[in-house]
């Protein structure tokens, strides 16, 4: 290790040898006499404090650095991240916000549509329920399970001789049905689709198994203008009955109450299908 060789040698060794401390070890002793180590220089610079020109200049610059550092840290901390952001960043953030707003608006719109749909559908469900109730009432009238009232006629047959037979009454019923009768009651028996008539022994007629005696009083709900002519047509019900010496009276009325009921028979096996 000669003196003229040393600098080259030192450079060569120092550059690659960053981690191992050993190759560096010889260097400080070699220069220890006239040169200070970095540590010593740092200690000397720190203490004792000397007011020299370089110190003052460096202090001034470091003051500026500290100021900038503090301001920057502060502006990053307080208010928002937007403070100090550059223009293009701001534009990008604004664009993102716009996009987000748009997406949220779309979501809101679709949700509102959904809500409207649900409201409508619940309206529809309510409407369907109403219609079902209405239909139930209509069907109840047809089935004879509920009382009915409305315009119609009364047909009174007074048969002193007992000549009236079941088939004559059946004719009358068919005629009335053909004329659009919606609810029929004979005395206190409701006439429905499944009503059957038979002659009862000793005069009178059995309607649905119940004996119905003279006078027969039909209460019929329907359009009176249709029902009355249907009965009175030549060769029709009235004439046929009168041939049997019965007294037949047909009276139109604006309010006929059919209040004889049939029990609703619940079927044992059949159930309404889900449709």
């Amino acid at each position, binding site marked *: 290790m000669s003196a003229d060789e040393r600098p080259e040698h030192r450079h060569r060794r120092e550059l690659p040898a*960053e981690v191992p*401390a050993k190759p*560096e070890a010889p260097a400080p002793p070699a220069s220890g006499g006239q*040169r*200070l*180590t*970095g*540590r010593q*220089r*740092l200690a000397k*610079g*720190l*203490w*004792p*404090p*000397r*007011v020299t*020109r*370089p*110190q*003052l*200049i*460096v*202090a*001034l*610059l*470091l*003051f*500026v*650095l*500290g*100021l*900038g*550092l*503090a*301001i*920057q840290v*502060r*502006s990053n901390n307080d208010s928002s991240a937007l403070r*100090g*952001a*550059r*223009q*293009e*960043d701001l534009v990008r953030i604004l664009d993102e916000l716009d996009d987000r707003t748009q997406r949220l608006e779309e979501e809101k719109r679709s949700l509102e549509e959904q809500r409207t749909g649900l409201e409508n559908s619940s309206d529809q469900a309510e409407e369907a329920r109403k219609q079902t109730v209405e239909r139930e009432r209509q069907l109840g009238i047809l089935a004879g399970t509920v009382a009915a009232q409305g315009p119609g006629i009364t047909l009174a047959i007074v048969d002193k001789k007992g000549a009236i037979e079941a088939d004559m009454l059946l004719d009358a019923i068919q005629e009335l049905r053909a004329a659009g009768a919606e609810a029929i009651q004979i005395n206190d028996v409701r006439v429905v689709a499944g009503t059957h008539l038979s002659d009862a022994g000793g005069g009178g007629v059995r309607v649905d198994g119940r004996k119905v005696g003279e006078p027969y009083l039909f209460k019929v709900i329907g359009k009176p203008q249709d029902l009355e002519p249907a009965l009175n047509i030549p060769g029709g019900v009235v004439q046929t009955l009168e041939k049997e010496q019965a007294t037949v009276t047909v009276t139109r009325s604006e309010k006929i109450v059919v209040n004889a009921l049939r029990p609703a028979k619940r079927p044992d096996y059949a159930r309404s299908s889900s449709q």
Partner: protein
Amino acid sequence: MIAVLGLVVGVVAGLLVRPEVPAVVEPYLPIAVVAALDAVFGGLRAMLDGIFDDKVFVVSFLSNVVVAALIVFLGDKLGVGAQLSTGVVVVLGIRIFSNAAAIRRHIFRA
């Protein structure tokens, strides 16, 4: 010692006084701070190497700040401000790390 005091006073003043930075300078402040940090580390290393010179330090400090701000300004004008400022920060960070490594070697001998 005075220099360290200067840094401390600067930080305290910045935190307490809370000066308003002009809006024109504001975007370049972070980059300028990083550039100044680089200059300070370089100065510290030079001091430890025994080759510190106050004139060189002042010039390098100011030129670092100005050049960094200039690069970002130019990048903003060219529309690549974000990328360019990232690049400046990366380069300065690398320099700071290498200076810090040299300082570490001086102080800890490792």
